[in-house]
């Protein structure tokens, strides 16, 4: 028999997790930064030193700049929308007394989240079809002008944003609903006894009490909008017309796996890691102080 004691025991227990994270996350990140300074021929396993040339050519590339601008638009539109609207719906859902109806709403809102991108994409492609699609048929029926939707460079990005919102808002909604239900009843009752109306109660009691959930969804929504929107982009527009709906991660995918330019793709990946790290750090700096864990 032997006993695990002291700090060695703690290290032993966390070692598997640390090892996995080190091998599958940090090591590839470090290697990626290394590759970004080379022109890497995967097949011949040849590395040609390029210094910062991959970074310079990336920053100079008009497609990268357009992907960067689009990413900013997606974040500016989708992050507030995916936080505010599900929160509002969660509040409204709490006011519904009929349990069956609540379950039906919850299921209806959550289903898009669990539908795969490929299936959702096929359905939305049909909806957006400019000639036989539902949207134009409906628009024409009510006397509105029809559109080219995904094929229109001025609209493609907004179509992608709309589908990404439809696909993603259910998750936050469920999290907010669960957090709101978890607020101790006596707190809410005390607020009612003190004469707090629904707005005051929501702004002064409920939102501060679910601040850990709000903070968590704030951070994860940024990551989801950066990353998961790629599925929608790929199925609906493939970044087009002429990169008008692309984003940074899709640009990375395109450089690496369609054009097989791994050195430049590694530079793009490094830039994305830096952007995400800075964005997350800023979120922590700006909002963590407002989070109440008790």
């Amino acid at each position, binding site marked *: 028999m032997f006993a695990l004691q002291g700090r060695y025991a703690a290290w032993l227990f966390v070692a598997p997790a640390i090892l996995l994270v080190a091998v599958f996350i940090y090591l590839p990140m470090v290697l990626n930064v290394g590759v970004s300074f080379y022109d890497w021929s995967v097949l011949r396993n040849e590395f040609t030193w390029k210094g910062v040339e991959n970074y310079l050519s990336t920053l100079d590339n008009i497609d990268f700049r357009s992907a960067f601008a689009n990413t900013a638009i997606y974040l500016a539109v989708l992050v507030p929308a995916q936080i505010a609207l599900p929160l509002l719906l969660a509040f409204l859902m709490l006011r519904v007394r009929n349990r069956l109806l609540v379950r039906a709403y919850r299921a209806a809102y959550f289903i898009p989240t669990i539908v795969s991108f490929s299936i959702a994409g096929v359905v939305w492609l049909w909806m957006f079809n*400019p*000639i*036989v699609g539902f949207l134009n048929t409906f628009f024409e029926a009510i006397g509105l002008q029809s559109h*080219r939707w*995904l094929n229109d*460079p001025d609209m493609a990005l907004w179509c992608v944003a709309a589908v990404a919102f439809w696909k993603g808002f259910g998750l936050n909604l469920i999290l907010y609903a669960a957090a709101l239900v978890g607020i101790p009843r006596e707190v809410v009752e005390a607020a009612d006894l003190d004469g707090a109306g629904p707005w005051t109660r929501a702004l002064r009691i409920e939102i501060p009490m679910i601040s850990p959930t709000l903070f968590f969804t704030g951070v994860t929504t940024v990551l989801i909008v950066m990353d998961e929107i790629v599925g929608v982009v790929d199925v609906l527009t493939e970044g087009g*017309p002429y990169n008008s709906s692309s984003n940074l991660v899709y640009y990375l995918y395109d450089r690496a*796996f*369609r054009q097989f330019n791994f050195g430049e793709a590694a530079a793009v990946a490094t830039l994305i890691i830096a952007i995400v790290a800075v964005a997350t750090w800023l979120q922590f700096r700006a909002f963590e102080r407002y989070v109440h864990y008790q």
Partner: protein
Amino acid sequence: MTGMKNSKIKIGRRAALGMGVSTAAVMVAGGAARSANASIDIVHFFSGADHPMELVIKAFNAKNLGVTAVSRQEGTTYEAITQKAMAGIAAGRPPAVMTTGWKLASFAKHTLGAQDLRQFGADGGAIIDNYKESVVKLVTIEGSIVGIPWALSTPVLYINTEHWKAAGLDPAAIPTTIEDLYAKLGQMQQKTNKAVLAYEVNEWEPQAFIQNAGGDVLDGAGKPVMDSAAAVYGMQKFVEAKTRKLWNPIGLSEMLTAFQAGALSAMVTSSARLSGVKAQSAFEIKLAKMPGLEGRPRRMNSGGNFLSILARNKEQQAAAVQFLKFCATPEAMKIWLGTGYLNTTKHDLPIPAGQEAAYAQLADGLTPETVWPGARGLEALKAHIDWISRIVNGSVSVPDGLKGSKEAVAKLLV
């Protein structure tokens, strides 16, 4: 524990010897079978158990030639299967045979290491002898024959005959020039108020217009020349359909869906799509040669893919050669024609119903799909497509767009 003790099986010396001998026999037999029957992976992107690609593989395996071909559908695009092939090559296990798009021919030779068929001596030569000289040229990259010309298609005009009849037009008298086509479609639009035309917005169909106008995308040395006066004229004819409001540019899948639903009177797409489009449509479809440009000689292009050998070891290469040998037979080509691709061989096979226009176009002579050379060829292709898309969407004029394309492509093809 007691139960376990009781259930122990005693093995005597004779039984143990017998088991050893039988195990050895199975191993020897298995080893012999393995060396006699090589297994090769055929990578492609054709889905469906009854797809002609699967049927060709099945027919090959039924011959029991000592080679088992394993069908591996590893994606739905050339790029997707190329990615996976690259991963396999990097790991030292390249697919033996891979379906490769014409546009990736240079990439296949220089990066994927597609083998020159002539290095396989008489066998390689015998395979190539089955194909028409004009199509062998399409797989000849810098003097190497990088595969067998397996799938050949060409852009043709698909007609919904019901719309044409409804507009009082004769579906048997399809216009032979773009100018006449646009005039007829204008009449049709006035009468039917339907969407009348769709082109694919890619590099392939504009190439047809550029060539029919007397221009080229890249010249013989691989230099971009898509901004020549002739090329500008060709592209202007392409986008004229939009400026005349005959064509509202849409995506490929949307175009096919609309046509199959009977909501589109005509579209230009690959002749190889006929069987798929027919299967989903409830009206009579007619294929016509892609109209040329008035007063200019026709010079239509082709597309499709070839089967290349990527195997590196001798046994796999020999087995791959066996498979390609079968693909070059009339039996395999007959099965393959079920796809809608054109007959690239010298074998006299019946023309599949409905494909007469595509074969007539083939008989006129087809140029290859543009092969994008160099390490950044695929990037150059994308840059060109983006400029085509800008032109079609009206973001730039035709001359400016083609000039922009030339500049972007020239930087990447250095």
